[in-house]
C-alpha cells in the first residue's frame, strides 16, 4: 500500500511538468500581448516595448520557462503583472473561498444525491424513481448561470431571505485567519459571522451542487441497480434479512466504488474553480480570478493558478485511489 502511494505520488511529477510546459507554451503563442492589454486603447509602441522589456518577455522562451519553474519549485509563482501581487500569496488568500464553496456544493450533492439514488434503485419504476431521475436529468442539463440568476431572483429579490452573493454582507467587517470563514468565525467565537457565512454560501452552493447532485444520484442508482440484481442479494433476502440490512450492509457497500470515482472527479472539478457560479454570485474564488487573468494576459497568474489546479486535481485523484483500497480490501495495488 505504502509502496503504491509512493509510486502514485511519483507519477504525478511528469504530469505536473507536462502541464507546466503546456500552460507556459499556450499562453505565449496565443495572439495579443500583455503590454497592449495593460495600456488598452492608449498603447503607444514605446510604452509597449518598455513594458515587454520589464516583464522579461524579450528573453528567449526556454529561459523564461526555466526561470518560472526554478521559482515555482521554491514556492514562488511570480507576481501579477497588472496588480503586482505575489501569485502564491494570492492563491493562499483566494483558495479558501473556493474550498468553502466546493464543500458546500458537494455536501448538498451528497446529502440529496446519494439517498435519492438509493431510493430510486430500491424502488425502481415507482413514481419516486421517475421523478427523481427526471429532476436529475434536468439538473445535469441546467445552465448554472441561469439557475443561479433564478435562485437569486426567488430567494433574494422576492423572498428576501438570502443574499445575492459575496461571502459576507457589504457592511460587515471581519478579520479572517485562514480565510475559511466558517472555520474562522468559530475559531473567533463569532456565531453571527458563522451564520452570515452560511446564508451567503447557501445559494452558490445549491447552484454549484446541482449538477454534481444529479450526476451522483444517477451514478448511485445505476451502481445500486447492478448490485441489487446479483445473486448474493437474493441470498440475503432469502436468509430473511431485513430490507435495510440488505441495502446498507450488502448492496451499498459494493456500490460505493463507482460513486466514489464520480464524487472524486466532481470534487476535483469544483476545486478547480467554478467560474460561472463565482461570477453570478460575486464569489471571490480562484476560478473567476483565473479567467480575469486570462483576459488580461496576466501570464504569472495564469501559469501559477493552472499549475496549482493541476496539482490539486492530481491530488484528489490520488486520494480517490487510496479510498478505493479502504472501501474494498479486495483491491490490490500492483
Amino acid at each position, binding site marked *: 500500500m505504502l509502496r503504491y502511494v509512493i509510486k502514485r505520488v511519483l507519477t504525478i511529477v511528469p504530469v505536473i511538468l507536462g502541464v507546466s510546459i503546456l500552460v507556459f507554451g499556450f499562453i505565449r503563442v496565443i495572439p495579443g500581448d500583455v503590454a497592449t492589454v495593460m495600456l488598452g486603447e492608449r498603447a503607444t509602441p514605446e510604452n509597449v516595448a518598455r513594458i515587454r522589456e520589464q516583464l522579461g518577455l524579450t528573453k528567449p522562451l526556454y529561459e523564461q520557462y526555466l526561470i518560472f519553474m526554478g521559482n515555482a519549485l521554491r514556492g514562488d509563482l511570480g507576481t501579477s503583472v497588472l496588480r503586482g501581487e505575489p501569485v502564491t500569496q494570492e492563491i493562499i488568500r483566494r483558495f479558501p473561498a473556493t474550498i468553502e464553496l466546493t464543500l458546500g456544493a458537494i455536501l448538498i450533492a451528497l446529502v440529496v444525491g446519494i439517498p435519492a439514488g438509493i431510493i430510486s434503485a430500491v424502488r425502481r419504476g415507482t413514481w*419516486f424513481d421517475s421523478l427523481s431521475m427526471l429532476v436529475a436529468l434536468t439538473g445535469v442539463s441546467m445552465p448554472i448561470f441561469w439557475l443561479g440568476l433564478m435562485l437569486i431572483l426567488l430567494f433574494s429579490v422576492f423572498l428576501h*431571505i438570502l443574499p445575492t452573493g459575496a461571502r459576507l454582507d457589504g457592511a460587515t467587517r471581519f478579520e479572517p485567519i485562514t480565510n475559511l470563514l466558517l*472555520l474562522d468565525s*468559530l475559531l473567533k*467565537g463569532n456565531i453571527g459571522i458563522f451564520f452570515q457565512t452560511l446564508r451567503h454560501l447557501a445559494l452558490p452552493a445549491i447552484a454549484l451542487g446541482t449538477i454534481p447532485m444529479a450526476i451522483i444520484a444517477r451514478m448511485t442508482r445505476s451502481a445500486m441497480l447492478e448490485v441489487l440484481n446479483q445473486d448474493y442479494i437474493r441470498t440475503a433476502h432469502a436468509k430473511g434479512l431485513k430490507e*435495510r440490512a440488505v441495502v446498507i450492509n450488502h448492496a451499498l457497500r459494493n456500490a460505493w466504488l463507482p460513486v466514489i470515482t464520480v464524487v472524486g472527479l466532481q470534487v476535483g472539478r469544483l476545486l478547480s474553480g467554478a467560474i460561472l457560479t463565482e461570477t*453570478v454570485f460575486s464569489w471571490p474564488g480562484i476560478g473567476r480570478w483565473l479567467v480575469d487573468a486570462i483576459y488580461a*494576459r496576466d501570464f504569472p497568474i495564469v501559469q501559477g493558478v493552472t499549475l496549482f489546479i493541476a496539482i490539486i486535481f492530481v491530488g484528489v485523484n490520488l486520494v480517490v485511489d487510496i479510498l478505493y483500497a479502504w472501501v474494498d480490501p479486495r483491491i490490490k495495488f500492483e
Partner: protein
Amino acid sequence: MSTVWTKRLLVLLGLVAILATVAACAAPTAPPPQVVKETVVVAGPTKIVEATKIVEATKIVEVPKVVTATPPPAKVQDTFIFGAQGEPVCLDPAIITDGISGRVINQIFEGLVKFDKDTTNVVPSLAEKWTTSDDGKVWTFTLRKGVKFHDGTDFNADAVVKNFDYWQNTKNPAHAAQVKAGQTYEYFEAQFGGFDNDSIFAKIEAVDPTTVKFTLKEPQGPFLNNLAMFVFVFWSPPALEKAPVECANRKPVGTGPYKFVEWKANEQVTLEAFADYWDKANAPKMKKVVIRNIPNNSARLLALSAGEIHGMEGLEPRDVAAVKGNPKFKLILRPANTTGYVAFNYKVKEFQNLKVRQAFAQAINKKPIVDSFFGGTGQVANQFQPPALWGYNKDLKDWTYDAAVAKKLLADAGFPNGISKVTFDGKEVPLEFWYMPVSRPYYPNPKDIATAIAADWAKAGINVTLQTVDWATYLDKRKNGLLPLYMLGWTGDNGDPDNFVCYFFCMDAKDTPIAREGFVADKEVSDLLKKAAVTTKQADRAPMYQKAEQLIRDRVLRVFIANNQPPLAFTANVDGYIPNPTGTEFFNTVVVK
C-alpha cells in the same frame, strides 16, 4: 420489499430540507440559540462540530454575548454600497487609468483643482486660486490652509512638490520601484509630455508653505483640465514613502472625504468618513462607503433589487427602461463623454478616395441604430467631441443618410457594382468590418451595432464580412494598423477637446501617418490641432477645434456614430449622486435615506 426504510429516508430528506430552510429564514433576524444548534448538526460534518467544541473550551465567555448580538449587518443608512463592474487595478492614483480604481481614488484623494459637479469646468480643490503669466508658462497656485492628510500630516506646498517629483522623476525611489515592478505612469506621460527632461515642466517650486509655482517649457492649452484629472491627486508624502511596492498592499492616504479601510480582493473596498475633512460644508454624509465588485450585470441589478447595494454602474441597455419605469429605482444618466466611431484604414486603397469614404458615411442610418441599441441613453454623433465639450461645433451639419446617393458616389468613384473586395496593403481581399468583442460605454452592443451598420451598407452595395477576435488581440491589431475597417471609440479623460481630437489626428514631428489610427495623415488638421494644444486661452482655442471638426467631417476622415450617456441605477432612497462626464464622481454628497 419493505418500504419502512425508504420512508425513513424520505422523512430524513424532508427534515433536512425543512431545517435548511429554517436556518436560512431564521438567520436574518436574531436566531434563537436552539435553532443555532440544530443548524450546526445539519450542516455539521464532524469537523465543524469539533471546531465549535474547541471554541467553547477556549473562549467560553464570548459565545453567549456574540449569539445575542447577531446578526451583524450594520444599519444600512450608515453605509453607501456601490456595485462596481470589476476589481480596482491599483489604489495608487498615479499608476492607474481605469475608472473602477478611479472611483475609489476619487473618495480618498484630492488634487489642486477638480471638475465642477456635472460639468468639465475646472474649479478649486486643494488650491484656493491661481494666476497665469501672460505667456502662459508660469502658473502660481495658492493652497488652502488647514488641510490634513488622513495620517495627520499637513498638506502644504512641499507635499505638492514631492508628489510631482514622484510622478515625473524616474530616479525618485518610489517611482523607480513601480517602474521596476512593471507599472507605468501613463497619464502623466500622456498629459505632461513625459518624464525627467521630456516633461513640460521646467521647474516646480514650493515658494512658501501655501504657494506652488509651476514653470512650463511651453504653454499648454489643457493644463488646468489635466490637473483636474482623477490621477493627479496627492499622497501624504510619509505614507507614500512607506507604501509597499505591490498594488494590493499599497494603502492609499490622501486628504479626501473618505479614508481607506480595507481592500478585499475580488470582493470589496471599504472606506470610512474622515472626521478632519477640511471642507466642512461638504463633509461626508455617510459613515461608511463600500464599493463591491459584482462582475455580472444581471446579478448586480438583482443585488440592487434586493437592496443589498444602493447604486450601480454597468446597467444593460435592455434594463434601462425597466429601471426608469420602476419607482423603487432612480436612473441617472452621466453626461456623454464618449464617442463611438467607424474608422478607415488608409492602407486600403479604396479608402483613399474621398467619394468612397463619403459613400460609407452616407449609407449609415445612425438614428435607428442609436435608438435601438443604446437603451435610450445614446445620442447621434456628427463629430468627435460630445456636445458637453467647449470645442464642440454646433453648426456642423452631418452627412445625411441616403443609400441612393451613396450608391451613386460609389459608381462615380469607379465602383458601379458596389464594393465587396478591396486592395489592402497591396493584396485583394474581401472587405472585413471589425467589431469589438466587448461592451464599452461608447458601444454597449458592438455586435448588434455592427450588424445593423453592415445591413445599411448592404443597401448601398457595400458588402462587408463581420469579424472580431478577443479584446487583447483586437487592440493589438488596431495598434499595428492591421484592421481595414473597424469600430472603436473613446472616453474622454480630462474634458479638454485636445484629449479627444488631437490624440487621434495629431501626427508626430515628422508627420508620419499614424499606424494606430489606420495610417490617417491629414497635415492641415494635425497642424491646426497642434497649434490649439499650445494656446492657453479657451476663447482662442475653441474656434480651432470647431474648424478641425469641420475639416474632419468634410474629408470624412472617420465616421462618428454615437455619444452615449452611461446609465447609473440607484435605489429610490439615494440622494445627492452627481454624475460627471469624466466619471470623476464624489460620494461625500451622497445620502441613503
